[in-house]
């Protein structure tokens, strides 16, 4: 397995798709930072919360990049017949699967380091020192992203190894990641809604729905927030918010407690073990043609 991992890492070093994906992640992070920086700097100083948001928004982009890279990288194994070569020279299917997972996980951790370093470098260069966030606060949250990256790698490796066609696995993985990101943004925002708001805040929340064109004097009156979720829907949303990797990354940008971070790390490690075990079991019986 060590040989397979080494070979995989060597291939990764020269993989153009991986470098393009990394470049795209960095490009979008810088684009966002720059556009926010230019608009904020005109009004006031760059707020610390924006720094944290950008860091984890950037990390969330790795989800799409991972889906693209892993499906193409592992799909090439099927397409070129290298998978059969690996099996023909005596490697067993479990070691092939696990080595692929390890290589993809390492690739994602490298991307995570790269994107974090980019945001930090931008912060160090352009942000006033008093607004630069406390590193000791941010680093543990970034470290929790490592098990999240493992979970993302686990899901994408499972898809790529179980679907023979690289194009179908790429389509499935990218669309699933995109839907997961959109869905997690929706449920995360919905869960953060306060139960009660003032009328002014309500109008601010939903200008298109709640603006009636009439002047109201009692804008400070506290009313129930119609967007606050209750009952079974809240339970389902909370559960999905806890288990989806992109939601976990969003949670990291909201100053989570140590307990939350620990829970996320443990949950991800457990899910990686379950996903890999299931993947190995199915892959062992798979007809590779």
């Amino acid at each position, binding site marked *: 397995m060590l040989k397979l991992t080494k070979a995989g890492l060597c291939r990764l070093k020269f993989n153009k798709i991986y470098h393009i994906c990394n470049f795209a992640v960095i490009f979008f992070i810088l684009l966002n930072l720059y556009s926010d920086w230019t608009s904020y700097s005109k009004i006031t100083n760059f707020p610390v919360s924006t720094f944290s948001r950008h860091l984890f928004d950037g990390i969330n982009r790795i989800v799409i990049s991972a889906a693209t890279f892993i499906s193409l990288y592992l799909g090439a194994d099927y397409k070129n017949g290298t998978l059969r070569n690996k099996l023909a020279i005596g490697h067993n299917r479990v070691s092939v699967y696990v080595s692929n997972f390890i290589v993809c996980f390492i690739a994602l951790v490298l991307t995570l380091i790269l994107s974090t370093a980019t945001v930090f470098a931008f912060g160090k260069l352009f942000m006033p020192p008093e607004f630069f966030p406390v590193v000791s606060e941010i680093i543990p949250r970034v470290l929790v992203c490592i098990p999240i990256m493992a979970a993302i790698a686990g899901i994408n490796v499972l898809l790529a190894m179980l679907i023979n066609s690289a194009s179908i696995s*790429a389509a499935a993985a990218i669309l699933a990641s*995109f839907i997961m990101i959109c869905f997690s943004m929706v449920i995360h925002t919905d869960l953060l809604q306060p139960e009660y708001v003032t009328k002014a805040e309500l109008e601010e929340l939903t200008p298109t729905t709640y603006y009636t064109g009439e002047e109201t004097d009692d804008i400070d009156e506290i009313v129930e927030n119609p967007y606050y979720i209750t009952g079974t829907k809240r339970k389902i949303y909370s559960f999905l918010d806890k288990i989806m990797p992109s939601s976990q990354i969003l949670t990291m940008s909201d100053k989570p407690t140590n307990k939350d971070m620990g829970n996320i790390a443990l949950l991800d490690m457990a899910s990686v073990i379950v996903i890999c075990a299931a993947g190995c079991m199915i892959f062992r019986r798979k007809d590779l043609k």
Partner: protein
Amino acid sequence: MINLINANFAKLFKSAVFKVSIAIMAFIPAFTVLANYAARGNKTTNINGIFNTGHMFIGFVIPVLVTLFLGQDYSDNTIRNKLAAGHTRLSIYLSDLIVSFCGGVILQLACIISGCVFALPLYGKFSEPLDEIIKIQLLGLCLIAVYTALTTFITMIITNKTYAVVVSIMTAMTLFMAGMGAYQYVTERKMLEAKITAKATDTQTTEMNENKLAYIIYETVPSSQACILSEGSVPKNSIKIVGYDMLSTTTFTLLGILLYRKKDIK
């Protein structure tokens, strides 16, 4: 070209991806109706826009369907057979485009039928006028034409099916994000303008800085147009939308034909 179209239709109807796409497009309105009914009962009139739910999702379904369907020609080398049989590259491109467009229309039809099947028994008849529904659906066809032309262009230019899938999905995602962002910006802006105008006296002026790019994207990008159509009434700028859509469809098709004629098919 008729032979090619016939053969492509036969291939399309047998395609598993096409069947899955139809199932997805039929599921969306069904889910919307049932979720709406479970949450609010039949007290709402929002169900009127059920035909338009597919417009948002078709932007993702068409790229996947068209790239996998047309990309198969490259991976199976049937494209060389077509050329060897004497068909011109122009007729191959156009027949692929026509069949893909018809596939997109069938997907939208699946959405309409499913919407009717689930909404009519639960909510009775729709209260919106029939001519409005037809006009919106015709505008929807323009969106389908843009998505089909763009995806056919990508698929015919990129020889590798997997890369074509990735590029077309990424393009669809970019268009979706740009369109949603522009739609949100312009809608909020219109609301704010209405608010300021209501508060301003006759002597006050209501000058606001505008992001012109957002307004351009709002009218030209299909995903933003889909949001406009989902508002439920025929938009005021419908002529502009049709014009922009026809322009983009023609541009992508001409560019595609031009590049495809010179393409080295290995």
